[in-house]
């Protein structure tokens, strides 16, 4: 088991490294190929003079060979560096240093650090909601296929899948914030500072996001469960004289949920960094919002930072799923 975990962790590190190389190449090389210097994306919105351009190219090392530039980028992330414009005092940028956003006048790391907890809160909370909701609806539907409950559940989930968040989100806001006034507009607060306000600011986004995914999971659980309940080992469990409850929950659901774990991990991992619409609708400043903002501003260092963080989140989620899978499915060789 230890060996299995070590191998998987090493594999994940390699993947992250490849992601960093690809990200670096796309974002550094892209401007070069279009014959504009990356410098333009590293300074404020006013284009630099020819002299300034040369100065900055030297300072940031854009005339160095690619591997040297990559090493500079990587060593910044790994060991930190200090950033200076050559005039004011150097800004220390501790590891992991993703560089400096001259458009926002802030360290990229700080911006990520502010945005990431919002996205993680959003994804994690919604994930718990949709997992519980989706699996419950799916299981109940599967136990009585074709019944009224099944039809309501599956029609409802079809509707939920079809409704985009920019529809359900405003509807939720309209009902709970403006009509009922149950959840007045509150700003996001970190859970460590004010858990209640954190909860209040998160609950509607969670519901909106979970609604969409719960529908997918309900359908997935239903089809897995239907298949599992037809398996021979379910017949064996019934032949032993187990109660219907034990047969369904211990023997049926256990097997039906195993493939769902994989999808769940990847879904949650993907969501961190891609909940742009939800964040926009509910005015949350998460990674999705940050990525949109930085794309609009052509803020290259921030785009690179968000890309890498989102990729790392997905890789970690995958790693957890892999390890978890070996625990829940004994047939996976460890």
């Amino acid at each position, binding site marked *: 088991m230890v060996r299995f975990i070590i191998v998987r962790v090493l594999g994940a590190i390699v993947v992250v490294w490849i992601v960093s190389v690809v990200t670096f190449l796309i974002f550094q090389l892209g401007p070069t190929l279009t014959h504009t210097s990356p410098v333009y994306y590293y300074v404020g919105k006013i284009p630099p003079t020819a002299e300034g351009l040369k100065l900055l190219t030297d300072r940031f090392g854009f005339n160095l060979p690619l591997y040297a530039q990559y090493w500079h980028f990587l060593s910044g992330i790994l060991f930190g560096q200090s950033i200076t414009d050559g005039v004011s005092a150097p800004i220390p940028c501790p590891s992991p240093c993703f560089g400096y956003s001259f458009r926002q006048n802030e360290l990229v790391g700080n911006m990520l650090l502010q945005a990431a907890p919002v996205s993680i809160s959003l994804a994690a909370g919604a994930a718990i909601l949709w997992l519980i909701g989706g699996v419950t609806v799916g299981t109940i539907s599967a136990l009585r296929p074709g019944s009224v409950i099944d039809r309501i559940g599956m029609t409802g989930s079809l509707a939920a899948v079809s409704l985009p968040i920019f529809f359900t989100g405003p509807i939720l806001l309209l009902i709970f914030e403006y009509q009922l006034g149950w959840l007045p507009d509150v700003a996001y607060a970190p859970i460590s500072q004010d858990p209640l306000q954190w909860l209040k600011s998160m609950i509607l986004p969670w519901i909106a996001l979970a609604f969409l995914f719960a529908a997918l999971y309900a359908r997935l659980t239903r089809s897995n469960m239907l298949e599992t309940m037809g*398996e*021979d*080992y379910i*017949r*064996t*469990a*019934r*032949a*032993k*004289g*187990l*109660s*219907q409850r034990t047969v369904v929950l211990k*023997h049926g659901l*256990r*097997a039906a949920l*195993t493939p769902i774990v994989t999808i769940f991990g990847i879904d949650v991992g993907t969501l961190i960094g891609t909940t742009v619409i939800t964040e926009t609708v509910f005015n949350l400043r998460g990674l999705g919002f940050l990525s949109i903002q930085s794309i609009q501003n052509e803020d290259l260092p921030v785009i690179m930072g968000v890309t890498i963080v989102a990729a790392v989140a997905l890789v970690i989620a995958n790693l957890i799923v892999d390890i978890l899978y070996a625990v*829940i*499915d*004994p*047939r996976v060789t460890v």
Partner: protein
Amino acid sequence: MSITSVSTSPVASETDDQPFLRVKDLRVHFKTDDGIVKSVDGLTFDLKRGEILGIVGESGSGKSVTSQAIMGLHKNSNARITGEIWLDGKELVGASEEEVRQMRGSEMGMIFQDPLSALHPFYTVGAQISEAFMVHNKVSKKEARAQTVEMLKKVGIPNAADRYGDYPHQFSGGMRQRAMIAMALICQPKLLIADEPTTALDVTVQAQILELIKSLHEELNSAVILITHDLGVVAETCDKVLVMYGGQCVEKGLVDDLFYAPEMPYTWGLLRSMPRMDRDRQSRLLPIPGQPPSLINIPKGCVFNTRCPFSDRVEGGQCFTKHPELLDTAPNHEVRCHIPSEERREILRTEILPTL
């Protein structure tokens, strides 16, 4: 006919009038979009403790459906079950799901064809057997474990205590079937139903498994229903045989009668298609031509009429118009065929036996 309440006879002891297991006019019909599938249509048989009954027939003849009906595994499905099943004085067809559930595992145990798919892949073999014990016995996990290890030893699993924590995929096929037997018998049920227990196994292991079933059957003095399509297994193991075709019993008798004096053309066909050591190796096996009937449109008259080579010997084409009754031809030997008994024996002697 359907019985709506559970009747328990005051004395559950066994007599000829009240055998341990009595199945009477059992019908299991499934309603589907294409029509009603009559998987089992009017099956009647008795079984005493200490006896082994073999049910033979080809795929789709209703063997497994019968066994699952006895276990009550069709409850809460779209099956419509009528008739009577009496087990040790209790009627099961009309009993509630909960009543039958209590009896599953404790009064009647079942083993299935493919032990790999019949065992849950995510739980250890030991845990699955202990679970079967704990449903019916209020004991601690530790006691159940001890009991399970004992049972695993009894079914011949070496290092039982160590293998307790193994998963099904870590067992060999024969071991898995042994574990299934251990699971079915851990509560010492008096009825064991084995649904093709050796079909998925290596030939070298088949005999061991049959031997194990036989010895445990003797030890527990239980009644056993052995479902198979392997006539060799029947000859080796069973006391009585019931031949099923198209959801009906076409011939029923003691094992010697069925092998030495079979009277139903379908049974002849089965025997002729069985390879034998003592037969000339150049001679070909004779398969039964044609396909089993659709259980949605069961043919009028005899169920076997489309494939029976002797249907032209019956006057007036009765085979195609009148459903033959299951009638005694000798003590403990019943046959469902329009050909008169004497004529059947004549055909057997002159036409069938020489080709066996």
